[in-house]
């Protein structure tokens, strides 16, 4: 039996102080500590040598008991201590080593952090992770997304305490993502007022649904306030790697702000309403009439493209390169065979733009050339363009005042006292033509001023035809104008003589302009579908003068379906019926209108909460698969009226069309709205394809997500 190593009696067991910084060096080296140990500064307190004391000529050891007591050997004869210096080099205790290590670790961490956080811009070491591939090109430029990156550490502290940092950063996102609209940071990128309206509409819906339990519980927290701006990072969390999905949101997250909450698309989703036919199509087209009548009856076969009747929807519609939108075939390929003759309207002589009124020679004595002396002027007024060009001519206006109400058809029947005014009208017309001769297009612009921009820069231009008219009708116009300005009498030239002087000319009608030597009128005859002059005129008129457009004479001519621009003619069909097929939309915010020249809705800047891609739905290869979703409206007859009363509205005279821009009310599609049950057959829980983002856009004013989704698909 061995003796115990550890003694715990008070004499043989020193009080251990592990928290002391220093321990005896002897203890560490040989396990023989001195009783004193090192002091707090880490110095050995042992004094093995003493300072011998002399007493009666002898030296005595003075070593204290604590240092080992008096030694046996005692001092040497010369009074020095016989002991060697046995002081140790104290060492750090475990506790002190740990504390030292802690300090070193803290200093290393602080130094590393200061290196990372120093500098005028963030270090690359600070980047919390790679950004997505779409943002990879700006990854090294922190300043592109973070306002804090404009400066150093002080700026960061300022940004950290700034409550608007998130929104300021979001503004930087919008520098690139500028297609999100002016209210991009508000929920769904729509204005608060618009959002309130949508919310009110949703509240009016009486369909009942039960919110999922998680949403009920989460409402106890703090869902985003619908009237506050939302930072982009609320939904889009960056720095999660190149392949991170920035747009991933769960259905519950989508619904957290919504007034109506429901379990899934399969259960509780609000009805689809009249989707996708909330608005009229860009082009008015009666599918029922075409499919059930024109494409069936043999009598129309000869008018079909290449004599072939369309057999299915694909005959006219094909998916675009992304597969998202079903494109409609071009007018030339699909519609022209039937409708081009209607547009060309061979019997239509053209829209008069310039005309010489009929003035008897006896009125124009000594007033120079006036070719239009016989016959009857066919309209009470001059062509609209002429009226506008003479509107700011003071002499012409003075003449009109003298004449009072003027009817150009009976100009020669007026009292002789009005002859001077009629002469002035003739000179006003000559002056107009002379100005055009001298200044060309500039003369028209100056005369039109700022009003009526729709008549400026008409393409193809009327100027060459006006110049030609001057050469034919007024070959000595320059001389006449000189004499007129000198108030000299100008003898009328013999018509035969003047025609000898005139330059030989050929009339080129290929650009639509025609010059008639019989009624001295310059007309424009539309070239066919998408006529450039009418398209340009309509675009500008609709955009800038829509309110007064209905009263414009030119509009009255081209919108008159019974007359061919002449009040007394009975043309079969009118040219310029553009707006019978091409509808007009008005932006509710800006008030600006635009014509839907193309059938695709892509040209509209309106909000789009729902995004549908045809491509994934066209893979089954089933015949007439379009009809599965796009079913005709049921009615007793096949001819369901798809036009509402106010799609085309007659004016008070019941003669001219007026334009209605209320796209939500003017017509129906002729199709039944998409049935939600049809969608649910595929989009249900079992197929896991019923998430909100399958069909809905958060950003109502962007097309990017849809495009990205398509590319992924």
């Amino acid at each position, binding site marked *: 039996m061995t003796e115990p*190593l550890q003694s715990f009696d008070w004499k043989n067991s020193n009080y*251990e102080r592990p928290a002391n910084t220093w321990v005896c060096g002897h203890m*560490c080296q040989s396990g023989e500590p001195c009783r004193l140990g090192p002091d707090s500064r880490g110095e050995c307190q042992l004094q093995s040598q003493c300072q011998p004391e002399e007493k009666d000529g002898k030296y005595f050891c003075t070593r204290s008991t604590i240092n080992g007591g008096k030694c046996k050997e005692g001092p040497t004869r010369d009074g020095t201590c016989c002991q060697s210096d046995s002081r140790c080099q104290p060492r750090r205790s475990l506790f002190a080593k740990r504390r030292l290590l*802690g300090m070193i*670790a803290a200093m290393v961490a602080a130094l590393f952090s200061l290196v990372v956080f120093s500098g005028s811009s963030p270090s690359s*070491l600070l980047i919390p992770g790679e950004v997505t591939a779409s943002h990879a090109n700006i990854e090294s430029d922190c300043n592109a997304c973070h306002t804090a990156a404009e400066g150093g550490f002080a700026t960061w*502290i300022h940004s950290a305490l700034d409550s608007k*940092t998130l929104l300021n950063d979001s503004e930087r996102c919008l520098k690139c993502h500028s297609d999100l609209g002016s209210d991009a940071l508000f929920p769904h990128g729509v204005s608060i007022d618009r959002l309130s309206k949508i919310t009110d509409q949703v509240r009016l819906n009486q369909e009942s649904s039960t919110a999922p339990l998680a949403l009920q519980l989460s409402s106890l927290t703090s869902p985003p306030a619908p009237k506050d701006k939302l930072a982009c990072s609320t939904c889009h969390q960056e720095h999660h790697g190149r392949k991170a999905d920035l747009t991933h949101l769960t259905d519950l997250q989508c619904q957290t702000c919504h007034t109506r909450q429901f379990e899934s698309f399969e259960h509780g989703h609000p009805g689809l309403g009249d989707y996708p036919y909330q608005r009229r199509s860009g082009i008015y087209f009666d599918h029922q009439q075409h499919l059930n009548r024109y494409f069936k009856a043999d009598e129309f076969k000869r008018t079909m493209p290449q004599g072939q009747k369309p057999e299915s929807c694909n005959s006219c519609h094909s998916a675009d390169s992304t597969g998202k939108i079903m494109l409609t075939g071009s007018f030339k390929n699909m519609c022209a065979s039937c409708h081009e003759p209607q547009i060309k309207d061979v019997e239509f002589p053209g829209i008069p733009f310039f005309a010489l009124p009929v003035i008897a020679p006896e009125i124009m004595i000594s007033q120079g050339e006036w070719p239009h002396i016989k016959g009857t002027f066919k309209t009470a007024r001059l062509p609209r363009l002429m009226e506008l060009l003479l509107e700011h001519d003071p002499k012409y206006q003075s003449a009109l005042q003298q004449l009072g109400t003027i009817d150009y058809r009976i100009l020669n029947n007026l009292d002789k006292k009005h002859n001077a005014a009629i002469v002035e009208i003739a000179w006003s017309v000559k002056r107009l033509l002379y100005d055009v001769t001298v200044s060309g297009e500039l003369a028209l612009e100056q005369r039109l001023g700022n009003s009526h921009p729709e008549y400026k820069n008409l393409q193809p231009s009327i100027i060459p035809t006006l110049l030609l008219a001057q050469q034919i009708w007024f070959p000595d116009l320059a001389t006449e104008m000189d004499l007129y300005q000198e108030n000299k009498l100008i003898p009328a030239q013999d018509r035969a003589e003047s025609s000898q002087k005139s330059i030989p000319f050929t009339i080129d009608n290929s650009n639509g302009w025609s010059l008639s030597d019989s009624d001295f009128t310059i007309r424009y005859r539309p070239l066919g579908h998408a006529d450039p002059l009418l398209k340009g005129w309509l675009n500008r008129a609709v955009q800038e003068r829509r309110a007064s457009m209905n009263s414009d004479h030119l509009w009255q001519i081209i919108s008159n379906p019974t007359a061919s621009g002449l009040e007394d003619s009975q043309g079969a069909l009118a040219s310029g019926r553009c707006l019978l097929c091409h509808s007009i939309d008005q932006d509710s915010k800006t008030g600006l209108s635009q014509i839907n020249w193309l059938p695709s809705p892509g040209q509209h800047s309106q909000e789009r909460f729902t995004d549908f891609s045809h491509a994934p739905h066209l893979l089954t290869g089933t015949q007439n698969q379009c009809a599965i979703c796009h079913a005709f409206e049921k009615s007793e007859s096949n001819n369901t009226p798809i036009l509402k009363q106010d799609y085309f509205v007659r004016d008070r005279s019941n003669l001219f069309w007026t334009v209605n821009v209320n796209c939500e009310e003017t017509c129906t599609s002729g199709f039944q709205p998409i049935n939600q049950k049809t969608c649910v057959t595929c989009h249900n829980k079992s197929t896991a394809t019923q998430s909100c983002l399958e069909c809905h856009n958060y950003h109502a004013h962007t097309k990017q997500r849809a495009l990205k989704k398509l590319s992924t698909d």
Partner: protein
Amino acid sequence: MRNLFFQQRIALTAFVFLSAIIFGAYYLFSITLSNTSFACGVTLLIFIFILSSYQLRKKLPFLSIGNTSTWLHFHIFVGLLSSVLFLLHIKMRIPDGLFEFILFLTYSTVFLSGVIGWILSRSVPYRLLSRGEEVIFERIPIHRRTIHNKVKVLIFDKPNPDLGSAIPDFYHKHLQSFFSGPCNQMRHLLHSKRHRHQLSQRFSALMPYLNEQEQTVLHQLEEQVQLKDDLDYQYALQATMKLWLFVHIPLTYSLIIFALFHTIAVCAFAGTIG
């Protein structure tokens, strides 16, 4: 013992309950698109400060704010809860950025060293009781020297001329390094007795060649070998109980500093205060 078991069950239940609340709150807040990472991060930072205050508590033993044992249990409990928050904060994935990866590594090391320390503090004391004498760690060098001195006396102080040189030779060859300092620490940690068995075999091999007096000395030497080996066992285990703190505590300081800088960066660049 039953009381301890009861306490552990309560602690486990409380941990599961609180973890469920944390997960639930995280889920509900994430539904409302709240900044859950920031909420987790702030809570985690508070937890880290609470955890580090345990070290402060040990430095202020005179304060009557609960005994150290209670604080230790609280420290372990909060530490485990912090791991739940940490996993939610990093969204169960390793961060890509260098600074955040270092922060991740630091927390993970501190947490794992804490868990290891916790396991050691639960298992080592039982092992210490199973072998050798209960000694104070700081005094082990003294006891080692005492044993060594005894061995030297037994071998080299020769009052009896019958003792030959076999034992001194044996000492120089096999025992000197053994008695000079701590030996076989890894084997002690692994609870291996292979080295002792080897030494016993050497003693047994030598025994037949010794006379009676030498055999007596050898028996006494064997006793000292056992005593020294038990002392090494105590040293290895007690040192292990102290050494894990050399990782846990210094890295805690680093963790606090990294976390504070991380908070500044997050608030500045993610605008989380707003």
